[in-house]
């Protein structure tokens, strides 16, 4: 006889598939979001217009304030579906302004929903300078005692300068679908050849840049389901006990030691499978198939 099958766990809306505005509205307390510089009354990038390209009135990023569990937060959400969430002059300035506002207004935290390939090439210089300003502004915000959390799980991941910015944040929360790296696989393939990095090998790309790999290596703090509600609950849980500490020599010394040691330990490896084996994972080839909870349990058993 057939036993009744347990129903699959109920899932909320996918973070990966949602737009920036949907993510913001579902992540924050209901009806609490107020957008700064909303599309009404805004103008789109003059630089894109000069190149004959259609712009967006929000320039691909949504910023504003709201509450999370009743506490005030500021929020940034990049729109990966507009020019790859890439950073141009206006896009970058909105983020810098939001971070400066955080230093002034002292919210509980800044939530940075990263979904970006990095510099917007159509505004390359403006984008690079803006990324540098965002880096400094994130560090200023943290130095003012306000944590900045990077939430990564969108279509474009966090690449280029946005990969650096993400690692400057207080913590990274990432879904399995999220990707975090510096150069995109396509760039490496173009410059170094398909043997170096086959950007169409989706499984390989995830084994090198994806959420599970970054979590196993300690490059993101939390691995969450591809579900806006899980991003919300994990953020709430982390913030409940978070103490943002000032930058200190001894913490950077410890990070220097961690990074140096791991470069020695994993030198020359080229696939997540090899790194996971070296970490002591019993069946590395099973990692891509594991559910989130099982992977978290597995990592807790590793001596990292």
């Amino acid at each position: 006889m057939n036993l009744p099958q347990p129903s699959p766990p109920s899932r909320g809306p996918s973070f990966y598939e949602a737009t920036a505005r949907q993510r913001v509205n579902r992540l924050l307390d209901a009806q609490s979001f107020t957008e700064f510089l909303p599309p009404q009354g805004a103008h789109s990038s003059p630089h894109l217009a000069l190149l004959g390209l259609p712009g967006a009135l929000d320039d691909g990023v949504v910023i504003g304030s709201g509450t999370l569990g009743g506490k005030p937060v500021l929020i940034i959400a990049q729109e990966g579906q507009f020019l790859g969430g890439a950073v141009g002059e206006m896009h970058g300035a909105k983020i810098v302004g939001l971070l400066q506002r955080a230093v002034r207004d002292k919210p509980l935290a800044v939530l940075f929903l990263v979904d970006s390939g990095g510099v917007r090439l159509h505004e390359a210089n403006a984008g690079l300078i803006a990324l540098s300003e965002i880096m400094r502004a994130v560090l200023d915000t943290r130095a003012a005692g306000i944590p900045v959390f990077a939430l990564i799980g969108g279509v474009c991941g966090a690449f280029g300068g946005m990969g650096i910015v993400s690692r400057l944040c207080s913590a990274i929360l990432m879904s399995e679908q999220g990707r975090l790296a510096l150069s995109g696989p396509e760039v490496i393939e173009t410059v170094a050849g398909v043997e170096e990095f086959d950007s169409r090998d989706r499984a390989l790309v995830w084994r090198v840049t994806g959420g599970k790999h970054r979590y196993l290596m300690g490059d993101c703090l939390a691995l969450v389901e591809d579900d806006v509600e899980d991003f919300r609950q994990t953020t709430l849980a982390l913030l409940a006990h978070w103490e943002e500490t000032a930058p200190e020599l001894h913490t950077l010394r410890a990070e220097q030691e961690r990074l140096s040691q791991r470069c020695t330990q994993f030198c020359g490896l080229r696939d997540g499978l090899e790194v996971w084996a070296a970490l002591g994972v019993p069946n590395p080839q099973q990692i891509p198939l594991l559910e989130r909870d099982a992977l978290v349990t597995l990592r807790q058993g590793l001596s990292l």
Partner: protein
Amino acid sequence: MTLFPLLDTLFPAGHEATVTQQVVTGTALTASGPVALLGTVDAAAISHAIALRLAGQVLHLVEHHPGRPLVLLVDTQGQALSRAQELLCLNGSLAHLARCIDLARRRGHVSLSLITGEAVSGGFLSFGLMADRVYALQSAQVRVMDLKAMARVTKIPHERLVALAASSPTFAPGAENYHRMGAIEALWDTPSSELLEQALAQLRTEPSAGDSRLQQGRMRGGRQEAAAIVAAVLTA
């Protein structure tokens, strides 16, 4: 100009610098005391190894020479492009380097960068652009991507980009564009110890001025939107 003749010109009172696998480290004397030298040569591709060596030097400086100014010598083609580098989260090591320079600033070390060769993308972001002020030799090449590659990726004809670059500093390579947009303080036609001493003296008089690139970019007419948007967000 190659590194050592340049250092002789900038620091006639003396300098002690060594280059090991593309990383420059050392100390130089100025009228106002010793400065730390740190940087890369031969358009280094910034890897984990290079980023961590640079970061280690900055931490050593903060620990053992409190307050000593930092002169960053920038010559990078960008980040190292390889799968093995990305596997170990290259953006993480570059972020660590940026945090170390930021720590030095917060501990009272003024810093200036001098672009001696190339300054490109991630390698520039995590190092040269983290200094209080950036200067460039006239011959410096500053870019994200050259216009031909940009044309390929954006699918905008190369001739069109070249024509537009004449009037807009926003996307085309060139140190002058970065000056107009506020990220480079000045281009040095003929480098000299006087220029360097002046730059250091200026930094010492305004040590906590913060990030003024938005305002500079607006004053010089190269970035018309950004400062107004930041102001609008602060009053929204």
